[in-house]
């Protein structure tokens, strides 16, 4: 006979606030819980027990799912910021390595590729060794950024399937990060999404110093970048509108809705054709 206790021990049968008991409780082995619950007075009969179990499990699962999903999009936010930090730092250090390395190895270059060359150089002094070690760190940071990107590409479709498919996983993750989370993105207007990442230009515009920005990070999307400049604003607006819908579907229902993408494809084709007609 097991000494384990069932989920209902200590749960008020009238209130049924059972989330902690169901989520955090454990038992070594199962037992005839319905009989025990009836014996302890928690339920009057089997039907009553199952009615209570049903209410408690559905409520607990709802809350647990919401909490886990919130946690997942925050993981993505950290991953995107870490990837950006690695890339920025790698580039910054690469400039230093390029400047220093040019004077040591007698040829010039730049970027991570040049740092990679420096790492293969045989050091002949203490300072040379320092330079080589610094170059190695550039290469390591660049590799870390690449691996973070691969993780983001795998993970974003789980967190936001529609947004990820429409924007590409990295841009989708970036939009989530810029908003502070999937929920915040889902609650944004499409005008906000259109200029996410262009905050400096937006505030300059609000101060009256500049024209309104046509796009923020969504510029990296083929539908904006690949549209001729004259129609880019329209394309950015159309894309931002559908991205906002995709984020809402991902946050509120989680279902795949491929037709959103098809509608966007049609809309952008129309905008681009307008250019050709003129």
């Amino acid at each position, binding site marked *: 006979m097991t000494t384990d*206790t069932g989920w209902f021990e200590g749960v008020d049968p009238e209130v049924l606030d059972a989330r902690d008991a169901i*989520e955090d409780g454990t038992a*070594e*082995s*199962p037992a005839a*819980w*319905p009989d025990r619950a009836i014996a302890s007075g928690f339920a009057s009969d089997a039907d009553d027990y199952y009615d209570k*179990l049903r209410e408690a499990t559905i409520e607990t699962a*709802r809350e647990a799912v919401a909490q886990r999903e919130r946690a997942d999009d925050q993981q993505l936010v950290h991953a995107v910021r870490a990837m950006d930090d690695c890339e920025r730092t790698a580039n910054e250090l690469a400039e230093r390595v390029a400047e220093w390395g040019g004077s040591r190895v007698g040829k010039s270059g730049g970027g991570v590729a040049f740092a990679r060359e420096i790492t293969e150089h045989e050091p002949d002094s203490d300072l040379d060794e320092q330079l080589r070690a610094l170059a190695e760190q550039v290469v390591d940071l660049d590799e870390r950024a690449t691996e973070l990107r691969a993780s983001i590409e795998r993970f974003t479709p*789980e967190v936001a399937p529609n947004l990820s498919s429409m924007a590409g996983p990295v841009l989708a993750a970036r939009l989530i990060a810029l908003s502070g989370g999937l929920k915040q993105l889902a609650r944004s207007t499409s005008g906000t999404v259109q200029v996410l990442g262009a905050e400096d230009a937006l505030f300059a515009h609000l101060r009256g110093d500049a024209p309104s920005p046509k796009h923020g990070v969504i510029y990296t999307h083929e539908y904006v970048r690949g549209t001729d400049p004259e129609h880019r604003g329209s394309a950015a607006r159309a894309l931002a509108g559908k991205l906002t819908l995709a984020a809402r579907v991902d946050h509120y229902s989680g279902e795949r809705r491929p037709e959103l993408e098809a509608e966007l494809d049609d809309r952008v084709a129309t905008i681009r054709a307008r250019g050709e007609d003129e």
Partner: protein
Amino acid sequence: MSLPEGVQRRSFDGRESLATRGPQVSEESIVDGWRRWDPDRSKVGAMFEDGLEHGLEGGERVLYLGAASGTTVSHIADFAGPTYAVEFAPRPTRDLIEVAADRDRLFPLLKDARKPETYAHVVEPVEVLVQDVATRGQAEVALANRQFLEPDGHLLMAIKARSEDVTADPESVFEGVCETLSSGYEILDRGRLEPYHDDHLGVVATPRQ
């Protein structure tokens, strides 16, 4: 092979298909209250179509591991007794909860099937254990959950070859999984789930005494 009580072959658009009676799930076909059970979307449906000796009669208590969005478990809850549905991923669980909300005796649990101690305080002993988890170590999951099964109960398990090893020959993967499984179960029937599911093996087993 006979079908459990509550599962019938019915006609949908002139084609015969398995069906159960219950509340409609999303946009599936439903005729006179009977829901079409699509074997292409359900391993257990495929086991029935492929004629495995499943041992189900209807009305049993069920523990379902790997319930995903609830497609199969909704049909099982239609003809079984109290049904406990374990799923670990939050997104499909959202759909599973909606399926459960339309039914009286389907209990969703956001739990990891590899850790039975985290739901043993909720799940009672059952007559049927269904397992469809796409994870490495599928036999170990079935062994860890054997404690939920009554002595004369039935395990219905779908083994996915690619979850164990993407490169190995499926038949040799199935052999390995069945061998591990045999330490705790007596295998009663087995068969590939083609044409409905590629590289899957259906297994029916009972706990070894």
